């Protein structure tokens, strides 16, 4: 149970980071669309508290994960060609970028809307900007664009993993599992 990656294997810690963020993102995307669709009500506030809480958890997790990644060995990519390798690392880079951009743009949207936030009804989240209509619209727009890009990249990411596992037979999916 080594926490360190090797050139062949992801460590259990890296796998945990991956699947924990995956789980949170799969909850976050529908939760965000659901919250947005609700009319102003106590339920909407509650759903948004969950969305903001989980979102900040992803943010924290991704920061820790990136710091961990910088210090770690990265297993050799399973790509068959140079192009595939470039595409794969670009997709991973974009995924990391989105996992930072989404919570950040959400945080700005939330702060600019002037509604206070207490993560999980426990931890007050400070405002990073003051109430601001224009900034709120821009941040909300960025948040929305990011989520659609995320969905697109996730389809590619999952599709590629399945292709590697099922068609190329290189056990890519198994390599990320425990």
């Amino acid at each position, binding site marked *: 149970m080594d926490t360190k990656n090797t050139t062949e294997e992801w460590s259990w810690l890296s796998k945990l980071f991956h699947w924990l963020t995956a789980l949170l993102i799969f909850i976050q995307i529908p939760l965000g669309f659901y919250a947005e669709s609700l009319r102003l009500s106590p339920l909407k506030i509650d759903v948004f508290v969950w969305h903001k809480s989980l979102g900040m958890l992803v943010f924290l997790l991704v920061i820790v994960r990136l710091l961990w990644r910088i210090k770690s060995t990265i297993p050799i990519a399973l790509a068959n060609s140079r192009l595939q390798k470039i595409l794969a690392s670009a997709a991973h880079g974009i995924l990391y970028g989105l996992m930072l951009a989404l919570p950040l743009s959400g945080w700005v949207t939330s702060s600019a*809307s002037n509604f*206070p*936030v207490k993560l999980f009804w426990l931890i*007050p989240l400070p405002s990073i900007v003051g109430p601001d*209509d224009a900034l709120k619209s821009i941040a909300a727009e960025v948040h929305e664009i990011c989520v659609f890009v995320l969905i697109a990249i996730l389809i590619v990411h999952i599709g590629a993993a399945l292709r590697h596992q099922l068609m190329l037979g290189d056990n890519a999916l198994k390599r990320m599992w425990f």
Partner: protein
Amino acid sequence: MRSSKKIFTPVVILALLGLAGLLISSQKIYADQWQSQSANSHLYFAPSWEGLPINGAFKQFAVTLSRDENDQPQSLSVSVQISSADMGTADFNEAIQMTEWFNGSTFAEAVFNSNTITSVESDDPRAQFIAQGILQLKGVERNIQVPFSWSEPADGNALMAGALSLGRNDFAIGTGEWAGGDQIGLAVKVWFDLVLESAND
């Protein structure tokens, strides 16, 4: 006996009327009127969510205070344009004007008129005086107390400040699913910092 009584009654009434007139006119003579300067005066309010304040302000309101011959505050009246409530964003401002909240299109103005103003001994510098009177808000009339301070710096204007807490359920603000107060708290903080100018003729 009978005729003297007949004359006596109108005399008494006239005398009472005269006395009342004298009192009213004497009040007029001594009334020292002050009026809030809109550009330099602020009226804030803050409901809360999970104990965290959501800050708002009324942008249009007027405060008039009159003092007696001993320079003691005598009456206080406040009128607030409900549609001027500003909670920082357009979405918020639209939401708070809805029927379950302020319902500003029906109840455009809130009014406070004091019945009495008493000078109090208090450690709180913002509570030198307490104005007790009726607040009419969203069609509901309630007796409330407004503590305030009064000071006159050398520039000829007067400064008035105070803070109070109002129960939003008392005025049916936040009805239906919001009335419970477990989401948006029932106590709403209200505070003001005013600059008043003398409004004597």
